[in-house]
């Protein structure tokens, strides 16, 4: 399957991708800004995400809370999200409401600052603190990603800290920070706008020009702070312990791997599926089914691009199986990846193909992937070649990846046990 699209760049630097898809009378409006938690400065962890919340608090022509109500009364859905490398904003609307989405997105890119108030910031700071409690502090194993990032990346690397950030840093965020962050990163030249769905590209482009064209080009975006170059591996084994109140111990295992976009990353992605996708995967078969040591197993590679990515695995212990024993068995099973069979790899590739095709049924997912490839690689057509890179991964690639990256010199073990009595 090939997803047709056209790409344009406005004079102010805004990249625009138009992907007509007449299958349903809907349109996805998807905007990626090339800024994420990796761009945060020391003492302001969590800020990119807090800022994302502020973008829904109104702009010069859009009153407070009106962004939501305009979309909802059009029968649309909307959200935004922040991750290490980027921040995205998106709405899916009935096709005849395309212009509404353009108006709202253009207004908060071009006219955000006049609507900013301390009261809104204080309110959203509390919302985000609750989000942190809900996701991290009041959930079993809730801080796993925060802890793994801190162990896989050195303090000087921008992935060392989590997207949600610390309560103290959220408290420290000021209106001046919001204004400065906006002026630094929220400019058309640091964004990609994708429209996907029932649309006429020529007319859509003309409307995009009308709404976005007079927003000025911003200053040059500063480089990502800190050290972005990393040694290929950790150079040792790192261990850390956490506690979980009542239930089952869990072992997390993380490896430093090449960044998303590199061909080695695709080997890692396929390896993660060989390891833990479905009942025929190595870890499920070995740990859950045959040795009955684990309640569940999970593995995935982070699609992140600065310096290095992570391959993360976890297994939850069955009652009666101690975390030390689980860890030992988990490492044994991971070691079998170095002898993965052709069938293991073929199975994983087919599953990834099928999943991608299923996801691309949705216009919002198509739009998001087009924006992603344009933002991260300056090449939206990678949406059409992504599966080729996955299919190009051979059994030998997976084995070589295991030998090179999954050894004792490149792993973090984070174990959650019950607190000592």
């Amino acid at each position: 399957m090939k997803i047709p699209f056209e790409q344009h760049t406005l004079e102010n630097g805004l990249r625009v991708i138009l992907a007509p898809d007449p299958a349903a009378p809907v349109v996805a409006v998807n905007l990626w800004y090339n800024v994420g938690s990796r761009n945060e400065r020391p003492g302001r962890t969590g800020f990119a995400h807090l800022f994302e919340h502020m973008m829904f608090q109104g702009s010069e022509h859009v009153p407070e809370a009106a962004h939501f109500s305009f979309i909802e009364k059009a029968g649309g859905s909307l959200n935004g999200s922040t991750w290490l490398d980027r921040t995205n904003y998106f709405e899916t609307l009935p096709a005849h409401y395309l212009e509404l989405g353009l108006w709202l997105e253009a207004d908060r890119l071009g006219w955000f600052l006049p609507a900013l108030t301390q009261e809104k910031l204080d309110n959203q700071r509390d919302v985000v603190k609750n989000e942190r409690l809900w996701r991290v502090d009041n959930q079993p194993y809730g801080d796993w990603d925060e802890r793994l990032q801190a162990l896989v990346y050195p303090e000087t690397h921008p992935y060392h800290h989590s997207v949600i950030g610390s309560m103290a840093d959220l408290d420290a965020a000021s209106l001046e920070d919001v204004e400065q962050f906006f002026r630094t990163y929220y400019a058309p030249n640091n964004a990609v706008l994708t429209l996907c769905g029932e649309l006429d590209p020529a007319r859509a482009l003309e409307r995009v020009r009308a709404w976005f064209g007079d927003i000025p080009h911003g200053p040059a975006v500063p480089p990502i702070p800190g050290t972005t170059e990393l040694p290929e591996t950790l150079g040792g084994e790192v261990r850390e312990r956490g506690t979980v109140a009542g239930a089952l111990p869990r072992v997390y295992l993380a490896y430093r791997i090449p960044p998303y976009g590199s061909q080695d990353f695709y080997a890692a992605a396929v390896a993660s599926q060989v390891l833990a996708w479905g009942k025929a995967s190595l870890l499920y078969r070995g740990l859950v089914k045959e040795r009955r040591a684990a309640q569940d197993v999970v593995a995935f590679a982070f699609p992140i691009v600065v310096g290095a990515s992570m391959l993360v695995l976890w297994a939850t212990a069955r009652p009666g199986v101690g975390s030390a024993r689980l860890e030992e068995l988990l490492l044994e099973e991971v070691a079998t990846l170095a002898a993965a069979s052709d069938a293991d790899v073929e199975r994983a590739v087919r599953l990834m193909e099928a999943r991608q095709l299923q996801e691309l049924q949705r216009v919002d997912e198509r739009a998001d992937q087009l924006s992603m490839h344009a933002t991260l690689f300056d090449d939206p057509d990678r949406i059409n070649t992504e599966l080729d890179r996955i299919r190009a991964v051979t059994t030998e690639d997976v084995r070589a990846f295991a030998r090179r990256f999954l050894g004792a010199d490149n792993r973090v073990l984070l174990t959650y046990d019950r607190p000592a009595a």
Partner: protein
Amino acid sequence: MSKRRLTLHLTGAALTLFAGACAGGAGPRPSPPELPTDMPEHPPSPIALDRTMAPDPGPAPTFTAPAVRRFTLANELQVMVVEQHELPVVDVQLVVRAGAAADLPPAAGRAALMADLLDEGTRTMSALELADAVDFLGASLQVYPGWDATTVALHVLKPHLEAALLLLGQVATEPAFPAEEFQRKREQRLNAIRQELDDPRALANTAFAAVVYGDAHPYGAPLGGTASSVAALTLDGVRAFYRERFHPENATLVVAGDVMAAEITPLLERALGGWERAAAPATELPAAPRPAPTAIHIVDRPGAPQSELRVGLVGVPRTTEDYYALEVMNTVLGGAFTSRLNMRLREEKGWTYGAGSGFGYRLGPGPFQVATAVFTEVTDSTLTEIVRELRRIRDELVPEEELARARNYLALGYPRSFETTGGLAGNMAQLALYGLPADYHDRYVERILAVSAEDVWRVANAYLDPGRSAIVVAGDRARIEAGLRALRLGPVYVREPAAP
């Protein structure tokens, strides 16, 4: 890849929990036109653009649900086929009326365990052979337990449809229920229940259902059962449940995607034609208990930095005539981001990441509940606000603008639920499961748009009752109990979570 697992979204759980069936088509227009709907060839001058008002959308297209071809196989299995040729993919759902509502309390979790076991080996294939075969087709074959049905769901590329359907047929009609897999799966279920003791959301949900429905009604236990009920399940019991309920007359098969409705019958006969007919018993659901006067139940989580709140009572069956009015009412109250509960508790107060409400629609009267998680120190104040909103929607007519927003949210969003073959299949399965009329999807939009402020007022008074609601709070008792007692909403009880 796994970005969904990891990215932080602006809005989260409490809302998506309740993102119920929603809506499509021809709503009233929001604002007067400022822009011509047909643009000239040349770019307009900036003056033509009025940024101070939302642009006019132009006329809404009318929504017509995709056509369904219905027929029955020789063994009386009812089939619904919907063609959608955008991509070479097909979704199949076999919906069998064998749900958890039939698990009377001592057997809670039986349907879910049966669902776990269906794809753990068939007469001719081991669990691993089956998993391998499905994976090699690049297919997904899953079994989902529900309150009213167990669904065997297949997603597959068109070229592999036949092979995958044969596997689906084996799973549904020839499961082996191996003793070893039974032991393993039952233990996995027990472990999952044990894990929930650490999860404040699960603790609150489980306690809420138990308080509202008591211990004599299937809805009083989690769908997956309790530690004691699952421990008592036997392989014979699960097999018997399967034998009793898994018959073609008790099922509907939905096929949606890149197929030709006129040509698919022989294929379906090959996959499922050998399924033998037999009568299945009707599910007799005990009457739900009458809602008791409001009481607060604390599930103590010492040191918890946040309180998980649930407020609600016995709701209403899916088949109710009041469905449309209830959907609009709930959208105003807690079913959308701009609903009263979320705007008050999140956007005004900053006490939560999200607040919402919803009806659990089932064949029997499922629960209505408000759900949120808030800073520990505002636990009692949050309850005051929730009760205030429950009273307000009963006492005052919803203003027209707010009502129009809720109606349009449901109606104009409806076509989106037909976008994917999976969504299409799911929508059609609802028709069969709940006996909804054939024109249900076509008429949904007009019915939602016909809901008046008086309708909303009437159903709010009929189905919400702040004086007879169960309130469950999973949080730090030491820090919240005094404040909860001071509210004087009703007696305060401390609930022990079930032992692992």
